[in-house]
């Protein structure tokens, strides 16, 4: 076939027929040109197409421009688009805005288009990862029914108990201590005291609060224990761990749907970015819990600076540990999950000073605290 001719296909066979066309108002008139015995007098085969029922498709070089007409069998003409610009313009106008945008992209993409595209991709990925996906994830996590949340909590506590043996006596004492404070709303508190050197405390979904022996050693006054528990209780009340699961699932779920078969390799990259983002959201949760803990201390008539004392102590320990290379790796777990910055402590200090708390002595808490501090008998 010659590229500068028009060909007509009738939809019944693949035989190409040379053709000519004319645009008459809203119609496309296609004449079949018989090469062998073409005579002016003889009536040529003629097809009249309603332009509004035509669909068109073109290649990037516009060498092959195809116009389809009818349902089935579809008739079509094929021509070189660059030789019939008026016809191309006609069909481009007919397409909707979006479709003609696609056609323009196919016809000619330049270097700067690609640059703009890359920038748009990077910006929208960032917006998506930073704001949209965490938002969707948190909303999704709120749909999780309570009994499932408690199941999840049980599973993670069972995982945590691998760190060391559960001290059931101290767990009961811890529960009594917490009941005195009444920090957790909506959930039954389940307290776990683990005999392990790990310096950490954590809140699992569904009201499970775990305290390790390691962090208890660092605490030297009952109000610091209240600060720690108030912080963890804030995690429980605000469903932080469930939200964090929701955020990572939504990042993964939606990203895999969007990138799908489009980009395998960049999908991995985006996932990495989502992971990093996860950390910054975790930090946000920490700050929120600290602030709530201070308010709780204030409400209980305890000195809010107990929170800062606890953080200071942990921070000093961290500095000490970084000088001593000998410390075991999991020694400072609390700091990994609860990173302490100067900023964080300063903010808390100024907030707590504004509260003007009048601190009182709580004999019952103090005696329960002393029970917890006693060396356990194995």
């Amino acid at each position, binding site marked *: 076939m010659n590229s500068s001719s028009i060909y007509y296909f009738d939809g019944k066979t693949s035989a190409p027929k040379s053709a000519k066309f004319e645009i008459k108002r809203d119609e496309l008139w296609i004449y079949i040109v018989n090469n062998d015995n073409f005579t002016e007098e003889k009536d040529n085969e003629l097809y009249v197409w309603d332009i509004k029922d035509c669909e068109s498709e073109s290649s990037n070089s516009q060498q092959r421009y195809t116009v389809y007409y009818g349902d089935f069998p579809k008739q079509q003409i094929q021509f070189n688009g660059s030789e019939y610009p008026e016809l191309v313009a006609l069909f481009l106008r007919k397409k909707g805005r979006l479709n003609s945008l696609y056609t323009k992209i196919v016809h000619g993409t330049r270097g700067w288009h690609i640059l703009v595209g890359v920038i748009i991709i990077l910006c929208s990925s960032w917006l998506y990862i930073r704001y949209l996906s965490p938002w969707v994830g948190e909303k999704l996590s709120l749909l999780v029914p309570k009994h499932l949340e408690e199941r999840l909590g049980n599973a993670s506590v069972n995982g945590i108990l691998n760190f060391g043996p559960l001290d059931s006596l101290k767990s009961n004492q811890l529960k009594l201590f917490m009941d005195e404070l009444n920090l957790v709303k909506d959930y039954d508190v389940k307290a776990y005291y683990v005999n392990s050197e790990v310096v950490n405390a954590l809140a699992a979904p569904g009201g499970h609060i775990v305290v390790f022996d390691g962090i208890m050693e660092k605490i030297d006054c009952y109000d610091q224990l209240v600060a720690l528990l108030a912080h963890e209780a804030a995690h429980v009340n605000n469903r932080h761990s469930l939200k964090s699961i929701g955020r990572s699932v939504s990042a993964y779920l939606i990203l895999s749907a969007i990138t799908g078969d*489009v980009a395998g390799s960049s999908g991995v990259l985006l996932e990495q970015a989502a992971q990093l983002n996860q950390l910054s959201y975790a930090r946000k949760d920490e700050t929120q819990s600290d602030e709530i803990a201070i308010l709780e201390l204030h409400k209980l008539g305890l000195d809010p600076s107990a929170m800062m004392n606890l953080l200071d102590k942990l921070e000093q320990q961290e500095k000490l540990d970084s000088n001593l290379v000998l410390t075991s790796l999991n020694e400072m777990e609390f700091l990994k999950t609860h990173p302490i910055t100067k900023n964080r402590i300063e903010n808390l200090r100024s907030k707590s000073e504004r509260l003007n708390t009048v601190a009182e002595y709580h004999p019952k808490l103090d005696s329960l605290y002393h029970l917890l501090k006693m060396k356990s008998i194995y």
Partner: protein
Amino acid sequence: MEEILNQNESVEFAPNQERKFIRFFGKGSSFFGILILNFILTVVSLGLYYPWAKAKLRQYLWNETELEGSRFCFHGTGKEMFKGFIISYFFILLFYIGYFASISQTMENPIVFFVVLIVFFVFLVFGFYPFAIFFGWKYRVSRTSWRGIFFHFTGDFKSFYKMYIKYLGITILSFGIGSSWLSTNTQKYLFSHTQLGSLKLDFHGDGGDLFITRLGGFFLSYITLGFYLPVFIKNLFHFRINHTTISDGKIQRALKTELTGKQSFNVLFVNFLLLIFSLGLAFPFTQIRSYRLLLNSIEIPSDIDYDHIDQQPGAYNKATGDEMADILDIDLDF
């Protein structure tokens, strides 16, 4: 290059002995542009635009592929593919729910987790895959035309499933060795029930050949630290193409690929570097490079009459009448 190619083609059909190749004219930059627009619209619509994006992508790729001076056309629409998209999304969601429901049981009772995993695996392999392979192929084929002639798939799911289960059983019992036969017979089933109008496709590959190709390929790729991989890919492509035949009712001829190990190595190696240094953003360009290499290497038999292929009555209608065909259209390689 296009001009030179076009001059060699004549309007009238004449049984000449010129060699004919499939031509792919896709450009990395256009492809990139389409992907970006698709990406933006998909993100803005929270993923719902995905089926429409897929339709646009296919329309482009089909339209840049040429056989005997005419381009292919993809007639599928986002609206049709949306149903399949929703269904597969539902399955993914189901998997996640099952996964998280069972993970909460893991510590207390590890058996539950394994049972859920096995049920899901069985469902995937025995139900979802054959369904997706069959109807995905049927959908794609019935929405593809060339010179107004539609491709046409005549297989029925029952006989396909029988074949699939038989070879899946062999694969499982032989600890995976049978997968070469499963793959070969799947292609054989799909191709032998596919025609372009009156032109019939078929596949004559043998599972044993594929097994030997794969065995050697895995082994040599492993001991050469992956440097044999391009040759392995070339061999697999040769197996797929060289055993594919087309017949116009009078004669049956095989396709042929001229792909060499060296070409395969060059394209793969450069693609690899491009992807690494662009952090994956060169993906559209590497993809087009691969398509170009593979498609342009395919030689089509020159003594088949491409100008007298007849439309099969009802080829298109039959496909649209069948709701199942629209349901699943997932990109799976058999």
